[in-house]
């Protein structure tokens, strides 16, 4: 009896082992993962096509090694795969998004990387590599191998692991070069022309007025930092109709970019504005440039942009204050959004919403957010304007404000303050408007957020890190405002 039991046990163990091994072969993986892209890009990658002729198989990266929760991970991924195989259409997968860092981290295991790559300091490592690996050792909990080596398992011709010295340098020849900026003589919307370029953009005249900044206590899904709501007076200003586009930002980049690393100079000598260093990889994430919002620039870089734009146009451009931003976003409305609808209805969070869905037709017409963005920025043409005629105030990319952020909300603010500028001191700056990554509840007019300087630079392997580009935030951009000359009636 005992012997039979032992034999049976042995057979089960062996069979189990064989099953685990069989279901971990490349052939077995590919039999379900029908999208041919994965197979092709793997074969082109350095984990398949390399000098020593070593092939690294699917499960060597996509499962942790034995003893690091291999069977548990295998079961977890197996169940997801079976569900996907029977209930989903693989052609509908957003593979581009799945190859981004935050997704990739869910199905590649750092223990698997270090199982083979045990020596982080081979003799051939370059100085840049040394700095990067020293940086990794000092922030192991926040950075994984993937932050820098994202495409080693699946080749991506667009993902360059180097300083992108050519970024934004391909100038399209254009005969229509503006020689003068637009002269503004009346308080009315106008189209600004950037002298020396063929780029123009629309500025909307935002009239002065008074409004309640923040959200009332009964607004669904609000956060405490949005209160207490209080009245604020705002002077008139011009605001860009759309977020600063790549077309606009690249003119600045070409005009001011510096090859070497330079600190942002705080002096007023505008003749000597030194702009961004070449970025790492592709700041546009391969989504395209044109009228899409420029992204991943630092808050300080956005300010230098405004300084440059002021210099070339002879006007006073700057980032909006938080109060100006919300005033403009509301366009006179007091509701959670400038259109009809409740955040409770639009949010996709919660189990019922996940199963039954919800009618989001209205919000989809006005806002680029999680549900309609395909995980990337959109061109401004894809949405309708708000009551002031501004586009993408909510969604698409989060926008820098000039204020420091205070988590205490508006509790210390004066009622009926005129053009408040936020706390005098602080660490991080206010960002507003939510982004293509946001849930509907986070694209409300009153929703607040702030820059996360450390987290947004965690991958940057340079020492010191860039002052111009964020390495780890792809949904931040900005919008300019222009002060109204006092001579204008």
């Amino acid at each position, binding site marked *: 009896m005992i012997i039979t039991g032992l034999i049976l046990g042995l057979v089960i163990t062996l069979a189990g082992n064989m099953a685990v091994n069989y279901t971990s072969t490349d052939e077995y993986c590919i039999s379900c993962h029908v999208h041919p892209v994965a197979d092709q890009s793997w074969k082109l990658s350095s984990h398949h096509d390399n000098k020593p002729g070593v092939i690294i198989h699917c499960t060597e990266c996509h499962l942790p090694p034995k003893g690091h929760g291999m069977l548990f991970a295998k079961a977890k991924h197996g169940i997801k795969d079976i569900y996907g195989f029977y209930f989903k259409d693989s052609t509908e997968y957003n593979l581009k998004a799945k190859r981004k860092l935050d997704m990739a981290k869910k199905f590649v295991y750092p223990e698997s990387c270090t199982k083979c790559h045990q020596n982080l*300091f*081979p*003799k051939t490592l370059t100085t840049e590599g040394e700095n990067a690996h020293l940086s990794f050792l000092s922030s192991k909990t926040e950075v994984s191998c993937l932050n820098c080596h994202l495409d080693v398992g699946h080749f991506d011709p667009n993902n360059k692991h180097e300083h992108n010295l050519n970024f934004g340098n391909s100038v399209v020849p254009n005969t229509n070069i503006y020689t003068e900026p637009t002269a503004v003589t009346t308080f009315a919307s106008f189209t600004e022309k950037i002298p020396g370029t063929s780029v123009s953009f629309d500025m909307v005249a935002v009239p002065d007025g008074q409004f309640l900044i923040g959200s009332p206590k009964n607004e669904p899904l609000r956060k405490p930092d949005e209160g207490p709501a209080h009245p604020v007076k705002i002077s008139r200003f011009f605001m860009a109709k759309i977020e600063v586009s790549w077309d606009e930002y690249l003119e600045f980049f070409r005009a001011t970019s510096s090859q070497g690393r330079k600190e942002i100079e705080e002096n007023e000598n505008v003749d000597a504005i030194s702009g961004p260093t070449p970025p790492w990889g592709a700041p546009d994430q391969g989504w395209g440039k044109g009228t899409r919002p420029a992204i991943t620039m630092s808050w300080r870089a956005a300010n230098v942009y405004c300084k440059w734009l002021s210099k070339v146009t002879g006007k006073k451009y700057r980032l909006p204050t938080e109060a100006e931003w919300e005033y403009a976003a509301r366009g006179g409305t007091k509701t959670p959004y400038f259109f009809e609808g409740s955040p409770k209805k639009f949010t996709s969070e919660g189990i019922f919403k996940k199963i039954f869905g919800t009618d989001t037709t209205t919000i989809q017409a006005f806002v680029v957010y999680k549900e309609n963005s395909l995980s990337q920025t959109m061109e401004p043409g894809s949405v309708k304007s708000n009551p002031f005629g501004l586009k993408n105030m909510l969604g698409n990319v989060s926008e820098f404000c000039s204020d420091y952020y205070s988590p205490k909300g508006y509790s210390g603010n004066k009622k009926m303050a005129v053009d408040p500028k936020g706390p005098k001191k602080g660490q991080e700056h206010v960002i507003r408007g939510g982004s293509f990554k946001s849930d509907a509840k986070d694209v409300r007019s009153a929703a607040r957020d702030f820059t996360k300087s450390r987290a947004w630079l965690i991958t940057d392997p340079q020492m*010191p890190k860039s002052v111009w580009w964020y390495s780890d935030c792809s949904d931040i951009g900005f919008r300019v405002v222009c002060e109204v000359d006092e001579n204008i009636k």
Partner: protein
Amino acid sequence: MENNNKGLNRRKFLGSTALAGIGILGASAILSGCKNEKDAKALGLPPILKGAPKGKKLRAGLVGAGNRGTGAAMNFISSGPDLHIVAIADVFQDKIEDCRQRFAKLKMDIPAENCFDGFDGYKKLMALPDVDIVILATPPQFRPEHFKEAVLQNKHVFMEKPVAVDPVGIRSIIASGKKAEAIGLNVVTGTQRRHQQDYIETYQQVANGAIGKPVSARAFWNQNHVWFRTREEGWDDMTYMIRNWNNFCWLCGDHILDTHVHNIDIINWFLGRHPESAIGYGGRARRLTGDQYDFFSIDFDYGDGVFSHSMCRQIDNCANGTGEFIMGTEGYTNCINTIWNLDGSVKWEFKYPKDENGNETNKLKIPPYVQEHMHLVYAIRTGEYVNQAEMTANSTLTAIMARTAAYTGKKITWEEIFKSDMDLGPKEIKFGPVDMQFEVPIPGTAHKA
């Protein structure tokens, strides 16, 4: 391996008498379990040797043949059997000749074809396949480049402190140290207090709780003015600066690195960590050449309420002295040989060996400058691996953080100094005119590095 540390001896003694019945092994296991006392090995302490063990012939090349370099090379050959200096590199031919003559007196002839001058001499020396070890003793500006090449050429390394003058150099040293570790190259550094038996045994006492929890510290290196060279006719800018290297920050790192790093290193060692930040003062009152300060006073913040006051000065006719001090919750120590109770009574004292006539002495039989080479040779010949590169890089960076705090008047954090792009050297190192400004740093303004 000789291991005459007191903890082990005492245990063996107890084990073989009072607890004879249980057996020595069991007893010492029980005892160490009860007392929870860490021995030298558990504390990562270097062996105290009477000489390097016998083994295969080891040939060293000396890079930087000045006083310290020649001294280090002498220390090396005297540290054990069958150790030789076979090559010399120095930027100046006259330094090479002086050094060769000193070795000739010891009947150790270094062939002329193994002597290399100029700024690339070190590369030629390290390309020699017969060289097993390199001794790096040039001004610290050049250390990172030399260490990098040594690792590339598979040489074991002895290198002098400080190991760099700026954060760019420090990171290079740490990375090269890790590369050396990956391929099994041993690295010993010239922070010789770490090889001094009296420091080592005091450390062991402190690590095992003799002063309780350390709560504050101080470290100091106050001395008379040091050497300097005035410019001679015919010397170009580069020649002058290198001959007078001890007075230029880009070559020397200032004296807070050059000498005070020893004391700073002790505090880092005893506290078991580097400081989180530094604030400090410094100035230049009496110096005649170069661009450095001649006094510093620094407050290091080690976190958890622990601070260390560091001071160093090179001015004549002042109160002099060097040393360290750590205050604990249950006592205090001078780190070198004595531990006091809080009431001032002596709790423990290191016993120095007696001389030939049986008289008390206050020094070790083997100088630490030789002991450190014994350790390197011991490591190579026995396979007991040693690598002090990162440890000394961290202590050097601690001094750089302090120097920057004094130069700028700002609070400097470890995080920012570790990641700084400060690089003090000229773009190109060659003889001739050098286009560099040598303004003395003014607190409240950025250091023009």
